[in-house]
């Protein structure tokens, strides 16, 4: 019983403190603030007021916490053997739909968003089929030559999917007709989980020391920056171009990645 | 006890009931006494025991005995819970006459004698008051007798193998013509009294006749048993397809019932044609349920059919399930046995039979409605018939044991 309590406490700490809520909120707010300042249109900074959180923020935060503890962050109290990439995928996948359920104004073109989400699922789980493992670090550590093409193609697909998943594209929800744009708290909550999961899956696992932590943080920030850059480019090219890219280019590319996955399976068997 | 009593007592019962017709209660009592006596004699005469009292070897096979017992039970059931407008003494008289004839066919040492008894039954029915012209009433059954006769003659001639095959055609065609199944359907008048209509051939006399003809035919033509089986299966499939489809689509409820009986005969003929024990079991289950469940239900539906009353109450749905051959009623185990026999003999045949078994469902749903709104004695009868169907469907072993299977 004591052992169970100890384990529960460590997992609770992971959810609430590191790498959970207390970690992802400030980093997410910082990243969102950077995006707000660089993105055309809405230079909005967060206004910190002590009040009851909105239910949509609570739901997204819970899911983000769950996803975050599955990531391969150094010093993660959750043992590596107890992390599963499917939990991360499900939790992050649910965040978009929690927004649609609780605040539809946050979700533009849900149909296209689902297509992108399906491509993202392929990018995350496609490389897991051949190794037959769902441990994030194992997937990150895969350096078998025959699996490298799938891993690279999936990583690129992941990066392609991030801007829409983080709503960095210029497609505004039909209901979003505010004169004064507000700070996007829900996006702030999912910046870190998405980027940390990318780093966990497509880079070798980092050691549990300060150097590893620094390297991990650097990779996360680099991923965020690339995503912001892609988002900025998309915003400049306009909504129609973005829609065209994600409805006519990314899905065929995903089919290519899928073919690569199937081809790898066939070759290795 | 001697098998001849199983013929003589029902025959005496028929004679008494016919003679005492002006006094129905007395006729009913006399007929009942002799009828019960006949059943007792039948039950006491062990299967396979041969009697030479009349100078002839008379014995009843276990299968024939089981069918006669079930037919007698069905007759008692129908007479006790007779439809509202039916005259019980008349029903009993006709039933006892048929029962005596069936018993005579079952105990006869030669198929020739059984065919002549059949001829007697044909003319007895033809002599009764009927709506159809006399000639059309006897045409079908007499064709059957002639075909059976030709089959017997060819079976006994010495010559090329084709003669035996022609004999098989004669016996199978004769049997099918006698029961009035496809392609030898008897002319049918929905308004005619059941006793003088083709229905008794299909539902009451037919089962015993079929067992007698198939069993004796196999003894007569050992070299043409396969041909006989193939013909039975072919005619059976024809009856399954056309009978079940027509029972669903044809105008007129009474005609639909008649086609459903034909479809059931299709199953029974297939079972008899398979030539394996499971096929015979399947055929017997179908025939038992025809006698104990479907015939009584048909009789009780006639009133509603005349008044064109249709209903979808729970009891109608249960009757529909019973007619459709769904579990837990007798049709389902019979179908399982048929599939098993077909699989054992030649599995593609099961592939043909399997889908055809679904044709019963629309017909069953249609005919379940034709029962109208049974009440009182009729509702009790329907309940008993359904219970008998469930008993046959869940635990048919006792009756199959009685039949030596």
């Amino acid at each position, binding site marked *: 019983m004591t052992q169970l309590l100890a384990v529960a406490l460590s997992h609770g700490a992971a959810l609430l403190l590191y790498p959970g809520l207390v970690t992802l909120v400030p980093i997410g707010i910082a990243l969102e603030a950077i995006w707000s300042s660089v993105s055309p249109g809405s230079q909005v900074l967060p206004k910190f007021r002590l009040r009851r959180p909105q239910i949509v923020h609570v739901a997204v935060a819970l899911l983000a916490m769950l996803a975050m503890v599955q990531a391969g962050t150094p010093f993660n109290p959750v043992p590596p053997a107890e992390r599963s990439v499917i939990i991360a995928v499900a939790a992050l996948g649910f965040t978009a739909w929690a927004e649609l359920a609780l605040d539809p104004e946050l979700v533009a073109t849900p149909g296209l968003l689902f297509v992108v989400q399906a491509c993202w699922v392929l990018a995350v789980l496609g490389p897991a089929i051949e190794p037959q493992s769902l441990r994030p670090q194992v997937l990150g550590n895969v350096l078998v030559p025959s699996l490298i093409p799938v891993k690279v193609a999936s990583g690129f697909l992941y990066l392609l999917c991030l801007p829409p998943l983080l709503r960095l594209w210029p497609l505004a929800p039909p209901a979003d007709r505010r004169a004064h744009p507000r700070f996007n708290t829900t996006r702030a909550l999912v910046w870190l989980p998405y980027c940390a999961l990318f780093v966990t899956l497509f880079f070798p696992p980092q050691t549990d020391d300060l150097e590893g932590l620094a390297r991990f943080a650097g990779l996360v920030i680099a991923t965020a920056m690339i995503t912001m850059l892609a988002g900025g480019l998309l915003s400049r090219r306009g909504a129609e171009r973005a829609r065209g890219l994600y409805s006519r280019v990314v899905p065929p590319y995903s089919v290519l990645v899928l073919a690569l996955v199937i081809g790898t399976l066939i070759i290795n068997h | 006890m001697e098998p001849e009593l199983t013929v003589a007592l029902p025959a005496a019962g028929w004679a008494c009931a016919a003679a005492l017709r002006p006094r129905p209660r007395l006729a009913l009592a006399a007929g009942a006494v002799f009828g019960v006596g006949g059943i007792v004699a039948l039950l006491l005469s062990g299967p396979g025991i041969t009697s030479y009292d009349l100078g002839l070897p008379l014995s009843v096979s276990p299968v024939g005995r089981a069918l006669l017992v079930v037919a007698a039970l069905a007759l008692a059931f129908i007479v006790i819970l007779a439809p509202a407008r039916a005259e019980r003494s008349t029903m009993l008289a006709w039933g006892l006459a048929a029962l005596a004839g069936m018993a005579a066919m079952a105990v006869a040492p030669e198929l020739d004698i059984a065919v002549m*008894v059949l001829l007697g039954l044909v003319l007895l029915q033809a002599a009764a008051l009927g709506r159809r012209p006399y*000639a059309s009433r006897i045409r079908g059954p007499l064709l059957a007798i002639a075909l059976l006769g030709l089959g017997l003659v060819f079976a006994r001639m010495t010559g090329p193998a084709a003669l035996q095959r022609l004999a098989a055609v004669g016996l199978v065609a004769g049997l099918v013509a006698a029961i009035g199944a496809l392609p030898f359907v008897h002319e049918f008048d929905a308004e005619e009294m059941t006793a003088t209509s083709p229905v008794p051939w299909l539902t009451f006399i037919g089962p015993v006749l079929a067992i007698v003809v198939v069993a004796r035919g196999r003894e007569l033509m050992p070299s043409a048993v396969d041909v006989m089986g193939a013909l039975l299966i072919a005619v059976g499939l024809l009856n399954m397809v056309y009978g079940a489809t027509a029972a669903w689509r044809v105008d007129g409820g009474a005609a639909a019932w008649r086609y459903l009986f034909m479809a059931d005969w299709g199953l029974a003929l297939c079972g008899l044609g398979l030539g394996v024990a499971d096929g015979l079991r399947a055929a017997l289950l179908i025939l038992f349920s025809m006698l104990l469940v479907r015939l009584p239900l048909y009789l009780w539906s006639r009133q509603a059919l005349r008044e064109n009353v249709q209903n979808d109450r729970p009891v109608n749905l249960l009757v529909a399930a019973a007619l459709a051959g769904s579990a837990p009623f007798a049709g389902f185990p019979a179908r399982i046995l048929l599939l098993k026999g077909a699989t054992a003999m030649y599995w593609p045949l099961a592939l043909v039979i399997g889908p055809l078994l679904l044709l019963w469902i629309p017909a069953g749903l249609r005919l379940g409605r034709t029962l109208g709104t049974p009440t009182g004695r009729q509702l009790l009868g329907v309940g008993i018939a359904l219970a008998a169907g469930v008993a046959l469907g869940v635990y048919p072993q006792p009756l199959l044991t009685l039949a030596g299977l």
Partner: protein
Amino acid sequence: MTIAAAAAAALGGAILLLSDGRRALALGVGLLGAGLSGLAVDAGHIVGAVALLAGAIVAAVLRLRSGPAGWAVMPAGSTPRLILTIVTSLIALWIAVSVTSGDGTGLRFAVTALLVMLTVRLMLGAEAAAANTAASGIALTLGAGALLANGGAPDAACIVAAAVAAGMPALPRRETHGA
């Protein structure tokens, strides 16, 4: 003797097929019975022969009591029946003589020919008296057919056949459309 008996039986069947009057029908069934009886004697079944003859005589006598009056042999429009009679007899003869083998050729011919003729008679639509007489003929023929069997109880079959054949014309005819 065999040939004469077979010919008599076939002639009786032909008369039944070609006639409608009570006298001709009685004569037909009588001849048919006599012929079959002769064939039974030829096959060595005296009891069966007597039974068949008796059944035929009773049937003929009872037939004389009812049915359309007179002879009415080959009434107008009976040409097809005549052709059928000839064709049937020839085919039966071919089967009995060429196709099959063994003793009892006459019996084989008579039984085959009679069964076909009498069935055709019924199929072509017969008035009740003619139908009943044809049925009597069929019964007698079936009885005679049992004589083809090796063993069994052919005499019993003949007795039953005679009883059925004799009883048939006695049955009441009801044409009314009641019930």
